[in-house]
């Protein structure tokens, strides 16, 4: 229960920071995808089910506030959470580089699907341009931010684990 509340607060904080601190944290017109970092790092630390749940709810929030179609981003993030959740098998407490690779891959997948759904379907075919101008900068910025954010989430998760262990 405590865990659920903390996840909920994390989702809200990441969403609000990402959407309203835009003018202060954007570099080269892109901003880091905090919600994706949240989903991927929890999927990596806790496995498929947690990754899916967090992905679903954070995607749903994005859909409700910004999307035209409710459910699309919930589905994308849910799938990302599920797939990254397989990596939980090779989870190690001291490894801080592997999650960054997953975050980069997941961000690419997310952006690519975004491009397909919102731009390719409207006949905008110049993928190379969009890749260079939006996708690549965002991946770099997201990975840079996740070096700090992953550490923070990892510490929170670790503290929760210990807490639960004590209760049991």
């Amino acid at each position: 229960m405590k865990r659920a509340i903390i996840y909920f607060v994390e989702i809200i904080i990441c969403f609000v920071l990402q959407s309203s601190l835009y003018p202060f944290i954007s570099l080269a017109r892109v901003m880091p995808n905090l919600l994706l970092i949240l989903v991927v790092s929890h999927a990596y630390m806790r496995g498929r089910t947690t990754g899916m749940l967090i992905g679903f709810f954070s995607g749903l929030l994005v859909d409700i506030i910004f999307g035209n179609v409710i459910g699309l981003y919930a589905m994308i993030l849910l799938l990302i959470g599920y797939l990254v959740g397989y990596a939980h098998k090779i989870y190690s407490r001291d490894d801080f580089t592997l999650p960054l690779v997953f975050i980069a891959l997941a961000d690419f997948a997310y952006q690519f699907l975004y491009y397909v759904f919102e731009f390719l379907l409207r006949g905008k075919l110049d993928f190379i341009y969009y890749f260079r101008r939006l996708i690549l900068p965002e991946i770099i910025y997201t990975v840079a931010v996740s070096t700090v954010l992953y550490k923070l989430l990892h510490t929170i998760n670790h503290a929760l684990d210990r807490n639960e262990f004590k209760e049991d």
Partner: protein
Amino acid sequence: MRRRSKFNLNPKHWLIIGLIICISLIVISFRFNEYLYPVRNVVGSAISPMQKGINIVGSYISDGLDTLSSMKELTQENKKLKDQVSVLSYENKLLLQNKYELDELRELYQLDQKYLDYPKVAARIIDKDTNNWYNVFTIDKGTRDGLAVDMNVLAGNGLVGIITECYYNHSKVRAIIDDKSAVWGMFLKTSDTCVVQGDLKLIEEGKIHVQFISKDAEVEDGYEIVTAHTSPKFLQGILIGYVSDIKLDSNNMTKTAYLTPVVDFERLSEVLIITELKEPLIKELPEEASSIE
């Protein structure tokens, strides 16, 4: 939460359940979009005060940093500006006198003062879409303050965009530089119409596409483009920007050009909303006369 996990469902089953929920949500939102309005309204109303708060904190901090760094410059500037104020206020008086005269003359000619007279409401931009692909932003006024969908948004003296969704205490505005935006424009001097179409690729250069200018239109670089009378949603005569690089299309029938908007979209923080809608075309007299509003 914990009780659920005691069922010990396989993650694969969770995935299938999640996917089914998502797909049915997508279908629902395509078919019955209007039923989701209250959901969006409630969630948005809960989130937007938080965003507003963060925004205030953020601007407070950055303002504070700015003040520290430029205190000295400011005192110097202040001195200069004070001198300027006295000069300008004198000039202003002269201009006001001229304005009164102009007003009288206009009345004589029975000219409509175009968009100066529209009722306006000021609002602050509180957040922007969470991805980098679009230029849709949220403002901190909504139906509570008399706004409605399709109201035009201005900043300074140029067009910013249009309200696409309107909720109790916030609304969403699509900027004209957005990739999905298209506005009917008109050359102020020659009355030739054109379509002002946002393009993600041109945002970096601060420009917008202008398409479908008639081949015969005698237009030159630097002409002003305003919203056209043909536009169903935009009020007539709002300045959009200045045209440049006019070229004949390869189809030899239309011309395209670039447009530099008068609004600085990079540094937009406050906007004005015209609380008057363009009158819709009504074919028949509605049954209740009071519902025309």
